[in-house]
């Protein structure tokens, strides 16, 4: 009895070369590891500063955010966290959709919804970080606004 032929996992029917589509999947695999390591550092710092130091979650209000984003260091930190986390999470969900959504139509719909959510969230967050003005409210009592 001949041994059954078992296809390599995730190979395409007909034995298409995995290289045929370029290196996208390899690059995304590498990106998950690289961005993951960076995110561990970024999110640990984020949680430590916002939840552990000072008064923890009780300190987080408009003035706290204004104080952080007055410093370009935290603007860049939060921007990097936003982009890396959304792309890391978006790519993770793309993998999960590919694994579990067996019908082509379902897969396409879910992926478009996912890409839409990623783009909207990244654009929204980026705009907020760069257009935030702590003194937009003329009646602001923040010390930084009264110095003007």
């Amino acid at each position: 009895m001949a041994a059954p032929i078992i296809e390599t996992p995730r190979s395409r029917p007909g034995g298409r070369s995995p290289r045929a589509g370029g290196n996208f999947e390899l690059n995304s695999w590498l990106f998950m590891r690289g961005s993951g390591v960076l995110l561990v550092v970024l999110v640990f710092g984020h949680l430590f500063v916002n939840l552990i130091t000072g008064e923890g979650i009780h300190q987080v209000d408009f003035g706290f955010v204004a104080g952080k984003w007055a410093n370009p260091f935290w603007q860049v930190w939060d921007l990097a966290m936003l982009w890396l986390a959304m792309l890391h999470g978006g790519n993770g969900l793309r993998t999960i959709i590919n694994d579990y959504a067996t019908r082509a139509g379902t897969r396409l719909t879910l992926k478009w919804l996912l890409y839409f959510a990623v783009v909207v969230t990244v654009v929204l967050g980026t705009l907020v970080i760069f257009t935030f003005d702590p003194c937009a409210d003329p009646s602001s009592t923040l010390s930084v606004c009264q110095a003007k």
Partner: protein
Amino acid sequence: MWTWVLHRITGVTLFFFLIVHVIDISMVRTTPAFFDRVMNTYKNPVVGLMEAGLVAVFLFHALNGIRLVLVDFWSEGPRHQRQMTYVVVGVFVVLFVPFLVRHLAVVFGG
């Protein structure tokens, strides 16, 4: 196997929280009073407990993720993957317990 399942579940959880979190922080572009009201939601004891849960979810995903990177890139990684799972659990406890003590004191300490 269970770490693989947990990695997916925690990853999806973090992704959806991140979308919510970007939206709630975006309220900083409305008015200071409204933003503070939104942030007060996070200081509610029930939500405070959910935050602790979310930190647990993040910690597992982060530590298990480091283990995955070591399995993939460290030549000795695959041989030690099981021991590294125990290290993930150990480091998780070492980091999460002090966080929980601190965070619950903040949330319930008034």
